[in-house]
């Protein structure tokens, strides 16, 4: 599904991704954890073409990102920490924009699927609201529905609950959990360790631009292999 081989990414002198390699299979849910600045966002952003990698190979569903450019990204959706909803469009407008403009769907088709998705994220009654009228949790659920409206095979989440008030985190995690049960391939950067433990098939631990651990959640949370990871987990867990 996703295959990364020795990818490197620098911002000027700063090496942010260093020889990162991994494979993700169809339907797998991967959580990416690690300290701030370790390159988690940059990794996701490189996968979907928001950042250009400096070297290495990246294949999405067997298509080389370098060779095909945009085509490789078509099957991916992304959800940002800051939602990035279109403020001038209603919830419905946010959901149908890309299916109509990019995929050339009719308004009717796009609306029909949008209704289903809003039902799925529990926001049917908000379809005519503007983003400014929603809570953070509702915004993020709209953002998830908007990404799903393009029918991606792979969903990337970059700290989807980090800018939410604690009481709103649960509703967003519930929606993501629902997707995990639907066999969508997902990569989720998160600081919600309990969630990561439940939902993931594998957990990547990133530090200084490298994936220093790629293992099943039981292993990393119950019996972390390095002191670095142990310290990180202790720190995170004491914050929550």
């Amino acid at each position: 599904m996703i295959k990364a081989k020795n990818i490197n990414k620098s911002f000027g002198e700063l090496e942010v991704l260093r020889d990162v390699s991994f494979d993700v299979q169809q339907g797998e849910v991967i959580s990416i954890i690690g300290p701030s600045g370790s390159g988690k966002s940059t990794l996701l952003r490189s996968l979907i073409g928001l950042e250009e990698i400096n070297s290495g190979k990246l294949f999405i569903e067997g298509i080389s990102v370098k060779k095909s450019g945009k085509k490789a990204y078509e099957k991916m959706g992304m959800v940002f920490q800051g939602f990035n909803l279109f403020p001038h469009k209603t919830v419905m407008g946010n959901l149908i924009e890309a299916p109509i403009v990019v995929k050339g769907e009719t308004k009717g088709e796009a609306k029909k699927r949008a209704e289903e998705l809003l039902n799925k994220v529990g926001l049917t009654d908000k379809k005519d609201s503007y983003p400014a009228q929603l809570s953070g949790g509702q915004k993020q659920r709209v953002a998830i529905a908007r990404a799903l409206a393009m029918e991606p095979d792979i969903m990337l989440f970059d700290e989807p609950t980090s800018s939410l008030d604690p009481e709103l985190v649960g509703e967003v995690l519930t929606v993501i959990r629902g997707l995990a049960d639907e066999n969508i391939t997902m990569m989720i950067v998160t600081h919600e360790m309990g969630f990561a433990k439940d939902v993931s098939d594998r957990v990547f631990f990133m530090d200084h631009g490298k994936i220093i651990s790629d293992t099943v959640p039981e292993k990393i949370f119950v019996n972390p292999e390095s002191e670095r990871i142990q310290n990180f987990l202790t720190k995170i867990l004491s914050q929550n």
Partner: protein
Amino acid sequence: MFDYILNVSGYVLEGSLVTFQLYLVTAIFSVILGVLGALGKISKIPLLESILSFYTWVFRGTPLLLQLFFAYYGLPVLGITLEPFPAAALTFIVNYGAYFTEIFRGGIESIGDGQYEAAKVLGMNYRQTMSRIIIPQTVKRVLPATSNEAINLVKDSALVAVIGLGDLLRAAKVAVTRDFSIIPFIIAAVFYLIISSVIVTVFRKLEEKYSVYE
């Protein structure tokens, strides 16, 4: 007395026809020029950016009256002779286009990267992103500044009287000289106030319309 006011009003109204035409032509084309200029300025094409910076520097940094004289009295020296109306329209379009270029550029640049990124990951290309996501949001943000320019334009349009264009102000002045009465000027002032008020109202309605979000 009443008859006189009515009579002069009719005369001034005729003059204001020219003012309206100039206003309309300038409003339409300077806004188009401003959008194109703003897109050019953010294009990251160095040559285009330099040319546009030079353009806005010159036209915002010199008096509109000088530009008007240049178009009407100056260009003939170079062998280009324009009638008063085309000379005035050209000057106003290019001058206001420079202001709108800067206003719209500022508006576009005030939209965060997140909007571009969201559009990109949804598969939208540059043209779709600009026309459907960025520019509509920019419209709301530039409305107040645009409204100011729209009112300035009403007042600036009176400058064309100096190149002999028979606009609202010139009509009033002719009547003042002819009748040795101050009333035509007062009527002209009332006309300008009415036009400005209509424009202010239109923009207020637009701002209300756009205030449904945010």
